[in-house]
């Protein structure tokens, strides 16, 4: 099955300008995704995004389905390789939710706390939640991008959602504006 993206098809035929358009179109979302995976480390996220685009350029002829989904799959595998090199962060085990979740002072800080809550999740849960909620992937698309069985993705989603809910419980009590 070839890609359904006409620009990716042009790029696969050797059109570098078409690939340039793809980079401009998708860089924002890809860097946002990587920024969340790297817990806000912009330098690391940008390095990973550059490597992702370079690998995508080399292998664009192998792209199948949605170009952005395929790009996220490359980014995720690059992130995993980098994470294994850097430090032994558990990739899919649950981390403890701290008991001392602070009471919110101001509802406008909800998104900031959401990012903090995401940073406490294991990468697989962070990735699954980001793909399915913020980036609008279906469960099947997320499973393909993360190279995981559908059931595993669903379980990451459910566990991650529960954990974020627990971390944001104070917000939910006062209602998030």
């Amino acid at each position, binding site marked *: 099955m070839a890609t359904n993206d006409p620009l990716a098809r042009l790029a696969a035929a050797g059109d*570098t300008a078409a690939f340039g358009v793809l980079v401009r179109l998708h860089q*924002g979302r890809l860097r946002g995704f990587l920024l969340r995976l790297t817990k806000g480390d912009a330098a690391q996220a940008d390095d990973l*995004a*550059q490597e992702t685009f370079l690998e995508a*350029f080399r292998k664009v002829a192998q792209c199948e389905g949605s170009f952005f989904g395929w790009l996220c799959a490359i980014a995720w595998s690059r992130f995993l390789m980098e994470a294994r090199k850097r430090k032994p962060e558990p990739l899919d085990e649950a981390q403890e939710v701290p008991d001392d979740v602070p009471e919110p002072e101001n509802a406008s800080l909800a998104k900031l706390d959401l990012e903090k809550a995401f940073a406490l999740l294991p990468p697989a849960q962070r990735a699954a939640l980001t793909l399915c909620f*913020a980036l609008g992937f279906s469960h099947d698309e997320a499973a393909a991008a993360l190279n995981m069985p559908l059931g595993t993705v669903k379980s990451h989603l459910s566990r991650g959602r529960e954990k974020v809910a627990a971390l944001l419980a104070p917000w939910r009590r006062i209602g998030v504006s």
Partner: protein
Amino acid sequence: MTQFDELLSAPLPAVADNGFSVQVMRRIALEKLRRQGALAAVVVLCLAPALFVFPWHEIGMTLGTLLPHIAGSLAVQLAVAVVVLTLLGERAYSKL
């Protein structure tokens, strides 16, 4: 959709390009150049041994005997004359 789901579904923070795309395309251009350089190096490496076994001497000898015949042929002399006259005519015309 609950308020919590809405919060989770909020778009990711916008990341400005700030020259990122240009940087990526620059690296891609460099990579293409490197790839072409590597291809050229492979071609040269493959051809280099052939240059050593190429019959240069025989070719030189053959050309040495053939060239006077070619130069003496009427057809070749006419063709050269046409080319020279065309070039001279073009130069004269461009000065007008």
